[in-house]
């Protein structure tokens, strides 16, 4: 389609810019045609049990046309050889926005996060009406917390962990298995009464989930942390998959792919959220509403996420945090200076794993059901994408990236006009991973320090280097 348009377009040789630009765009358009031709131009559909082909020439033409005209437009405007090179070397728009908002943005975001349930309830006019928004808030905060946890490993220590979901799974299964265990229930029933374990399981298991996940982090991390960066990534990926496959296949222990259901709900520090006389509503003299539990869960995950952020910020000021950042910038230099790289890496790995375990425990109590389906590689990839998009090492960037990517997609789903454009079965969340993948590549190519924030080391000797550590190879610059 684009090729035909190209043939009918007037010759543009008069202008020295337009000619080469046109030729270049034509080549790129042809390459795009070759790339998209098979997969967009044809669709394999199953008709009457047999596989057949459907044709989508218009969609292909639109895609190739966008690329052709986009490239042409860029060639004659931004990339034009006649264009004077930009003399503007100061901070970019993002940086300036960052400095302007800098001091105020963190308290403002925090205040918004704390007041969010109240805002949702008042703006939507009732507890039950706000359920969707608060659930979304819980989802976003879970990913903020996971992002912050992985940020310790990837952003601070520079270890690429592709199996972070394993620790999320360990946390979730720790709670699910302990809370539904009959012997433990019977044991506590004999000591403190029949409902003790159901009411207190979450609060007892939460620290245990974190500890277990941290221990798993050490067990898995110890042999592999001597490996170079990309090997480490693949081995963590393999461990993540091994744990998921064991969860699926060890049916006696984990109930396999069917998962574990009817996990005890969260309680208000021992007071269950039910309509009974001992329930939360009766005790505080409120009319019973199932939303109390949801709002409470929101504050639990908010507190957990803030704990993660607080611990990270404090750790960065300790010698171990400084060692993490140094390790990220230059591992060989670290070793020469006598930093034990294995234990330093291990501490980062285990700390990150611990927060993953907390988040997993929260996931189990919120959903009331865990199955291996929830812990696929996609989740690891999503968390990693959030960390990369936010800017590795930056707290606020990760939070913004999580909110935009998780919340933004959910919001898009409800926009009516998108359905009018793309048809009724249009579901933006299908495109979420597509956008994540594309964004990861784009960020690495254009702004490797992240879209929202930078990741400069916390301390410098004397002055900042002219070349930041993330623009040079290990051991150079």
């Amino acid at each position, binding site marked *: 389609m684009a090729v035909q348009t190209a043939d009918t377009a007037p010759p543009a040789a008069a202008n020295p810019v337009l000619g080469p630009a046109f030729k270049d765009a034509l080549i790129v358009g042809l390459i795009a045609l070759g790339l998209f031709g098979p997969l967009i131009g044809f669709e394999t559909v199953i008709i009457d049990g047999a596989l057949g082909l459907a044709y989508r020439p218009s969609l292909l033409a639109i895609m190739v046309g966008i690329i052709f005209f986009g490239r042409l437009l860029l060639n004659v405007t931004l990339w034009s050889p006649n264009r004077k090179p930009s003399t503007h070397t100061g901070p970019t728009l993002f940086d300036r926005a960052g400095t302007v908002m800098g001091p105020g943005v963190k308290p403002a975001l925090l205040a918004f996060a704390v007041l969010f349930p109240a805002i949702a309830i008042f703006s939507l006019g009732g507890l039950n009406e706000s359920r969707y928004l608060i659930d979304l808030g819980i989802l976003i905060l879970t990913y903020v917390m996971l992002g912050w946890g992985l940020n310790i490993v990837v952003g601070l220590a520079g270890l690429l962990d592709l199996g972070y979901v394993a620790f999320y799974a360990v946390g979730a299964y720790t709670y699910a298995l302990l809370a539904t265990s009959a012997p433990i229930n019977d044991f506590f029933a004999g000591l403190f009464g029949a409902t003790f374990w159901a009411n207190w399981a979450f609060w007892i298991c939460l620290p245990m989930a974190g500890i277990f996940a941290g221990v798993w982090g050490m067990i898995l991390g110890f042999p592999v942390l001597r490996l170079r960066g990309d090997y480490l*990534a693949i081995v963590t990926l393999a461990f993540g998959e091994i744990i998921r496959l064991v969860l699926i296949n060890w049916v006696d222990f984990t109930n396999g792919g069917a998962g574990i259901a009817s996990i005890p709900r969260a309680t208000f520090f021992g007071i269950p959220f039910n309509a009974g006389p001992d329930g939360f509503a009766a005790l505080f003299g409120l009319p019973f509403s199932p939303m109390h539990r949801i709002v409470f869960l929101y504050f639990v995950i908010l507190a957990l996420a803030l704990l993660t952020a607080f611990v990270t910020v404090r750790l960065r000021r300790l010698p171990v945090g400084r060692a993490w950042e140094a390790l990220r910038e230059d591992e060989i230099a670290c070793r020469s200076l006598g930093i034990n790289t294995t234990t330093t890496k291990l501490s980062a790995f285990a700390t990150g794993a611990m927060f993953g375990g907390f988040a997993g425990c929260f996931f189990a109590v919120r959903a009331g059901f865990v199955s291996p389906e929830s812990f696929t590689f996609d989740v690891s990839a999503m968390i990693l994408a959030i960390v990369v998009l936010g800017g590795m090492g930056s707290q606020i960037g990760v939070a913004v990236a999580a909110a935009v990517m998780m919340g933004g997609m959910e919001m898009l789903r409800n926009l009516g006009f998108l359905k009018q454009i793309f048809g009724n079965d249009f579901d933006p969340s299908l495109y979420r991973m597509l956008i994540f*993948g594309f964004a990861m590549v784009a960020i690495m190519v254009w702004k490797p320090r992240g879209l929202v924030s930078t990741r400069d080391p916390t301390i410098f000797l004397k002055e900042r280097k002219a070349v930041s550590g993330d623009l040079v190879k*290990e051991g150079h610059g």
Partner: protein
Amino acid sequence: MEIFVQQLINGLTLGSIYGLIAIGYTMVFGIIGMVNFAHGDVFMVSAFIALICFLLVTTVMGITSIFLALAIVLVVAMVFTSLLNWAIERVAYRPLRGSFRLAPMISAIGMSIFLANFVQVTQGPRNKPIPPMITDVIVLMDNGSYQVTLAWKQVIIMVITAALLGGFWYLVQKTSLGRAQRACEQDRKMAALLGINVDHTISLTFVIGAALAAVAGTLYLMYYGVANFADGFVPGVKAFTAAVLGGIGSLPGAVLGGLLIGLIETFWSAYFSIEYKDVAAFSILAITLIFMPQGLLGRPEVEKV
């Protein structure tokens, strides 16, 4: 005994496919030192291109000769997959040379996610089955209750793999392109000083890797008769395991590793448990990297400042 021979045949077939993919990993690693995480998904895309081409050839063009159809599909899949991998290198990896050390890896992971989901969005999440292509078998052994069979498609896979590896060996050892490639592998800066176009050589490395992956994708489609958008991930990791086991950077190592992984996987499924076959492959990856990072035929890595 019969079961053993049968599993040996199955394992070698599977191993051939892994070996073809593993070459793509090991070549790219050798020349630019990155794990091309998206290679498994390039393999999956090639299977889809082969699927679409196969449907076009058989249903639209009406070619009934299965061997002619297969030949056309192979060539088309190789061409389009090579173009894809060339474009990927150009867009996602080339701008990152000299960036910080995790950048190409993250970019490759992003590309892998993108490719898998691009296929999911454009082709749908369901399995795409095609009718079995070549069903004839040769009975090698028969003890009354158990037949050892060698399917023709297994023969085709092994023959095509062996022929391609021969051609590939010739390319790397005897041609100027192969010499340039080996030179870039040893010292990129020096190669550039001696007049080798390094960017061009790296691009061609990606093209060759993709062409071999496309052959693997086509053979995979022919062997299993099904394509799915998620099929790139696990074979990709297994082929990477093969490359690591054989010694990453070593081309004979990749083939040897591929055959070994194929054999281990089939024997594990036959004699231990089919549920844990992926666990076995992933464990081999971890164990090899931890205890024997240079692999069977690789050179030990020297860290330089």
